[in-house]
């Protein structure tokens, strides 16, 4: 079947990636991050980031409003839980569908402009969604208090099939409720599917077309291509990935709040993608894991931990050093992240992936081949 065929190299990448993702509970153990809630976050953020990368990495259109699709996905999934059933499949289906529709409308309008105007348009739409979700749409979104399950939810399909359980139900798959690591493995399988789809897109003529648009849109237009349908498709796919990530967030924890739609959340996925390596397959995943991991590890540090770390120094030096260092961990983790991000954009525009490649070429090996256009973020102007 050609539909599921991958080139030999892609197949190898996919196999390695699958092993890495599925073995997460084992190799994260020594790193101290092997609990389900965090690993779910790893996997879901990776989906969000690779989806964003399909748009920004391939076409060069920098969207600052992707969190809106994530939020829409979350709300739709929770509503599917409330109204229909606790099963994960319909929740994902509706979330992807609705966020895809949102992306279609927003993308259709925003893609009429490019460059910075596109960024501002997506930002404006996302802010509209956020502000509305926060104010007028509270009957749908429950505003500040977040949308959550209640005992009086209709859950039409579930109640028709079985008697109502006593407490609040949790998300399930074909009647089997998730517990322990099952939620993680469910998300991991979804990530693998999403990754496979991305690989197919990257290898397809469609992906080629998107790269061509990124490298020179004017030339594409002159050769007689109408680029709009291609960019719009990329935008919608990317929005659907975000919606999928939102649905998975809701599945692992049936709660949807407005903060998921705030524009700083859109900024975070930009950070992940750039940090990992924009335009590469694995880069965004690595960026997402990197940020989520260090956020978790660093936020756990407090001043006494830092003090203990610097205790080998004499007290006069250790105290000020520890005081300064403590500003960069714990609550101050965002500061470290911001600095790191600036450094990456200035010195290493290709992100961690480019760093790995450079180190690889230092040792005389041929590093991970990255097409030259993919390494640098170029605007579509």
């Amino acid at each position, binding site marked *: 079947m050609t539909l599921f065929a991958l080139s030999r190299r892609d197949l190898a990448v996919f196999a390695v990636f699958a092993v890495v993702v599925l073995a997460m509970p084992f190799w994260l153990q020594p790193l101290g991050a092997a609990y389900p809630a965090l690993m779910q976050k790893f996997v879901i953020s990776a989906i969000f980031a690779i989806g964003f990368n399909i748009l920004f990495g391939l076409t060069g259109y920098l969207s600052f409003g992707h969190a809106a699709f994530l939020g829409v996905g979350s709300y739709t999934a929770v509503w599917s839980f409330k109204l229909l059933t606790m099963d994960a499949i319909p929740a994902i289906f509706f979330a992807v569908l609705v966020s895809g529709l949102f992306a279609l409308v927003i993308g259709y309008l925003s893609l009429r402009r490019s460059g910075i105007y596109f*960024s501002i*348009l997506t930002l404006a739409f996302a802010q*509209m969604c956020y*502000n*509305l979700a926060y104010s007028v*749409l509270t009957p749908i979104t429950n505003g500040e208090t977040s949308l959550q399950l209640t005992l009086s939810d209709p859950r039409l399909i579930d109640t028709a099939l079985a008697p109502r359980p006593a407490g609040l139900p949790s998300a399930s798959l074909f009647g089997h409720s998730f517990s322990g690591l099952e939620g993680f493995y469910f998300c991991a399988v979804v990530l693998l599917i999403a990754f496979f789809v991305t690989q197919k897109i990257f290898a397809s003529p469609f992906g080629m077309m998107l790269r061509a648009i990124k490298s020179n849109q004017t030339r594409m237009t002159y050769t007689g291509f109408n680029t709009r349908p291609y960019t719009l498709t990329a935008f919608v796919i990317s929005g659907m990935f975000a919606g999928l990530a939102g649905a998975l967030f809701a599945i692992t924890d049936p709660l949807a709040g407005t903060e998921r739609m705030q524009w700083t959340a859109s900024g975070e996925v930009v950070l992940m993608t750039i940090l990992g390596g924009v335009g590469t397959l694995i880069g965004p995943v690595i960026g997402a894991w990197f940020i989520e991991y260090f956020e978790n590890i660093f936020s756990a540090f407090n001043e006494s931990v830092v003090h203990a770390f610097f205790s080998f120094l004499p007290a006069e030096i250790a105290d000020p050093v520890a005081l300064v260092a403590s500003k960069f961990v714990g*609550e101050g983790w965002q500061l470290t992240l*911001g600095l790191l*991000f600036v450094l990456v954009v*200035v010195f290493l525009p290709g992100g961690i992936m480019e760093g790995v490649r450079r180190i690889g070429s230092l040792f005389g090996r041929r590093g991970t081949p990255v097409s030259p256009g993919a390494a640098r973020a170029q605007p579509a102007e």
Partner: protein
Amino acid sequence: MDAILAQLLNGLDKGGAYALIALGLTLVFGTLGVVNFAHGALFMLGAFCAVTLRQLITLETVVIDPEQLSAWGSPLEIRTPLAQTWFGDFGAVLVDYSVPLSIVLAIPTMLLIGIAMERGIIKHFYKRPHAEQILVTFGLAIVLQEVVKAIFGPNPISQPIPSAVRGAFDVGAMLGLAPGALTYPMWRLIYFLFSLGIIGAVFAFLRFTTFGMVVRAGMADRETVGLLGINIDRRFTIMFGIAAVVAGLAGVMYTPLLPPNYHQGMDFLVLSFVVVVVGGMGSLPGAVAAGFLLGILQSFASMSEVKQIIPGIDQIIIYLIAVVILLVRPRGLMGRRGMMES
């Protein structure tokens, strides 16, 4: 009629803040061609100049007087601000007027920060695409706001209005309406006049000084000005510093209206970008006009009569206008033809 006038006035101070930030953004874009996502952070830094000054001049000495007893029966603690110990009554006045006084601190500070920012990072990004400029300045904005958070903590710190101008001003009486029919907080009026003053100063500076003339020439054709033997880069660096000062002053004077917190820069940034786009990328008068226009429209949209017709319009009106403008007339209200019209 009164209600409409009141809303018009309500929009003016917010519009003034938008106009000042958008003016700085446009200056930077027009001179250096850089899209500066850290400009909101400069507004926030200005606000924290006011906080710093106030914290400095309200440093207190505590003297415990065993003779007197406080209401709880413990020895009375007499707290005197250092400024008052040193300068007497004049010190008390200083404390009262800490917000307008911060302007004196903010101008050199913001100028230095602006120039350091431009020389340190932004100058390496002139030739890079807009997307990368957005990314690096976005990162810079995160760094700045987190530094402020590390120093001043995450909670908003409210700043008092000087007691002399704390009341409301009877605008109605001035316009021949009944006394008390239309009053307006004095500080908001001051903010509006202040923003007009700054805008006027910037325009006059560009219009009537040789420096301004060179800068305008450089905005029109950077290369030719450079070929004439003028060091245009240095002038543009100074313009970046001036844009930072404008944003900073807008922030200083806004502190009594909105207690500054570390993320207010980001909140204002999105809005002021929208303002720039509506006014026309690179057009200074456009930025000012759009700032006031959007401020006023926002305050009209938050009237309950309007909200009854279209619920939620007050939340999205600014973005809605921006979307319409970008789609219908991408060069903005007053933008030059062909400016970023792709």
